[in-house]
């Protein structure tokens, strides 16, 4: 089964998506912010694996101490996603694993002119919705994106008109 895990920083800024299959890494798509923060780590993981801190109790040693050690989970292993999620959690990054339907909804949410936090909460809400509700939500999200796009187009035209007037005024000054 293919899983998509969406990543966000502590301010809910979208970092990108990691696609895995049965827990093993397939590929990652990072946003600009995600590239800045995570690209070096992802590169390192591909070569050396994801660092995971393990702990073992030593019952045979007096005082039964707990020993911590680090091991690496290779990206092709099925434990990759689990290890990566742990790493993200330890580094203040929220990792939200979603199914295909929610992922499609997210592609529209990401285009909406909302605050990162509002997008994040919308995603989490949709993640808990039933399949039939999701289909209806997707339709609504598409309509919302279209409504926002329409306003953006109007704004672009108004700004172009403003600069056009300014240019006309300037040319008139120097050709008089």
């Amino acid at each position, binding site marked *: 089964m293919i899983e998509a895990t969406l990543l966000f920083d*502590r301010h809910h800024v979208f970092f990108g998506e990691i696609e895995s299959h049965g827990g093993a890494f397939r590929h990652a798509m990072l946003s600009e912010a995600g590239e800045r923060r995570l690209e070096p780590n992802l590169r390192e993981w591909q070569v050396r694996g994801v660092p995971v801190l393990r702990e073992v109790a030593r019952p045979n040693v007096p005082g039964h101490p707990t020993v911590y050690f680090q091991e690496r989970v290779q990206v092709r292993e099925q434990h990759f996603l689990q290890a990566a999620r742990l790493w993200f959690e330890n580094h*203040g990054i*929220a990792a939200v694993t979603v199914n295909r339907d929610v992922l499609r909804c997210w592609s529209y949410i990401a285009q*909406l*002119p*909302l605050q990162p936090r509002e997008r994040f*909460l*919308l995603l*989490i*809400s*949709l*993640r*808990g*919705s039933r399949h039939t*509700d999701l289909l*209806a*939500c997707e339709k*609504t*999200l598409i*309509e*919302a*994106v279209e*409504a*926002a*796009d*329409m*306003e*953006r187009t*109007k*704004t*672009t035209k*108004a*700004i*172009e008109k*403003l*600069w*056009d007037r*300014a*240019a*006309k*005024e*300037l*040319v008139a*000054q*120097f*050709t008089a």
Partner: protein
Amino acid sequence: MAFDHKSRGWGASPEGPEATEFDPHHLASLLTALRRYEGSGNVPRMAQERQAKKVAPQAKELMELGKQRATKAAMTVLNGMLLRLPTFAMPNEEQGRAWEVNYLEARQEGSDRNGHI
């Protein structure tokens, strides 16, 4: 009457504050608009920059208003949907992000996971 070159942009010092406090994005918008007009080649650089600076606040205001309108338009469409979705308690600064994620995860998965649901 003598032609005032300086007020029309010629001969103005490029070292002055006008030349330094400048957003090239606005100048680019003005230059794009200027290309549509015959005689735009006669407009000196300093006059272009001055005009760009003069118009920039209006452009910014339009952009800001446009963003607000786009958000309002999207929210109007989403409103009905949001009412049907599960609502979540808003975390505050003291409770922090970990609480929020755990809380949301717990709500989703029906388990405690430190969310104390």
